[in-house]
């Protein structure tokens, strides 16, 4: 699906990270690796520390509400100006009702405020932006609060070296608005459902409810221990998909917009791991300094929240004072891959806070 909008802007981004920090060394003895091998992998993948919730009772909703409280308390967002709430997550508060409606209820928002949950993972920021832009084309909708939140650490086995070292938790709030300025947003989102199970949590939905049996740990051929309630990632397949599809998509969009690595200041991508991102930068022909890859080492991979996190962590103050053209790209669960090129800057806020 092609993305093309005008007179739209992002006016603020806030990332919310758990205060609880876990170091790679704290957990590496859980894996069936020698210490030397773990440390080599740590260097290649960029594992150092990650931010995860301190206990399973803290949810993506909690992190989002902490962020909204911060914005309201600091007069960065007027709740009466909100026309719609989008909540993009793979860890909703309940199967029903939608988490966006819970947020609506908590803040006693007007009945006219539209709410929608979107089930998306690694491409969740790009899909959420696209949905926000579409909402803004409706009469009476001028400000959308896009909430990306994922608390997936409780869904990852501590004994799974494929996933546990890299998964982090986070939420982000992005304010998306109409503007009279002559702005342009271009991009594309693609899907390949034939690869849907490359990243999956087998149990917990209607197909396979959680039972005592699904909660039992089993060992895979590489020595990882996980249950059917835990995230399973076919890392090799995901890596090859990303290295093939994402550069192709970016090349096509950039050619159509007459952009280049010179006119695009930063490539703000989903953050699976440093190795994959450096390979992507090389493949696209972009200097590694223009494609930051430092989120996994500092915070962990928080699925659909990593693009706001990489933005606020690396460009926070810069984006509050200047404007630049950037390329957002998210890829993974679904399989879904999406890219948006737009100008962003002079934001009301571009910050990262801890809860």
């Amino acid at each position, binding site marked *: 699906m092609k993305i093309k909008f005008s007179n739209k802007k992002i006016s603020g981004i806030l990332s919310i990270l758990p205060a609880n920090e876990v170091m790679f060394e704290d957990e590496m003895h859980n894996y069936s*690796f020698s210490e030397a*091998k773990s440390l*080599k*992998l740590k*260097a*290649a*993948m960029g594992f150092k520390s990650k931010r995860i919730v301190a206990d399973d009772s803290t949810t993506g909703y909690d992190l989002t509400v902490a962020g909204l409280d911060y914005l309201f308390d600091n007069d960065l967002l007027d709740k009466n100006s909100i026309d719609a709430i989008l909540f993009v997550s793979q860890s909703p508060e309940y199967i029903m009702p939608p988490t966006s409606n819970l947020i609506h209820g908590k803040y006693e928002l007007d009945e006219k405020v539209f709410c929608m949950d979107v089930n998306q993972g690694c491409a969740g920021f790009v899909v959420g932006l696209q949905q926000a832009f579409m909402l803004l084309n409706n009469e009476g909708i001028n400000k959308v609060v896009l909430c990306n939140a994922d608390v997936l650490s409780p869904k990852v086995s501590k004994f799974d*070296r494929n996933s546990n070292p890299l998964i982090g938790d986070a939420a982000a709030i992005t304010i998306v608005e109409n503007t009279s300025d002559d702005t342009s947003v271009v991009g594309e989102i693609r899907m390949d459902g034939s690869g849907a199970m490359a990243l999956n949590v087998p149990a917990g939905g209607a197909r396979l409810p959680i039972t005592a049996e699904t909660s039992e740990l089993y060992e895979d051929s*590489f020595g990882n221990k996980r249950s059917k309630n835990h995230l399973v990632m076919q*890392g*090799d397949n995901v*890596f*090859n998909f*990303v*290295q*093939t599809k994402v550069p192709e998509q970016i090349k096509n969009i950039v050619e159509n917009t007459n952009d280049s690595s010179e006119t695009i200041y930063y490539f703000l991508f989903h953050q699976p791991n440093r*190795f*994959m991102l*450096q*390979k*992507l930068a*090389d*493949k696209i022909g972009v200097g590694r300094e223009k494609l930051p890859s430092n989120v996994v080492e500092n915070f962990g991979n928080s699925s659909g929240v990593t693009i706001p996190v990489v933005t606020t962590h690396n460009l926070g103050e810069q984006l509050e004072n200047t404007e630049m053209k950037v390329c957002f790209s998210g890829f993974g669960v679904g399989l879904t891959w999406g890219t948006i090129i737009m100008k962003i800057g002079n934001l009301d806020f571009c910050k990262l806070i801890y809860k």
Partner: protein
Amino acid sequence: MKNKIIEILNGIRPEFDFGSETNYISQGMLDSFDLITLVTELDESFSISIDGTDILPENFESAEAIEALLKKNGAQ
């Protein structure tokens, strides 16, 4: 080039003799995490960046296959 490749492989998995064996992946001598470490070390040693789409098991089955991969990606 081949000697350097084998030296790197032996550093990653010292329990195997990469000089006299082949079918590294099929035999389980290297797993996907070893490949990440291997590619990182090959990139640094030969001052190249192996294309991400070339990181496929068949390109790492033997020292000869790795040598061909390196040459394809510009190693001298």
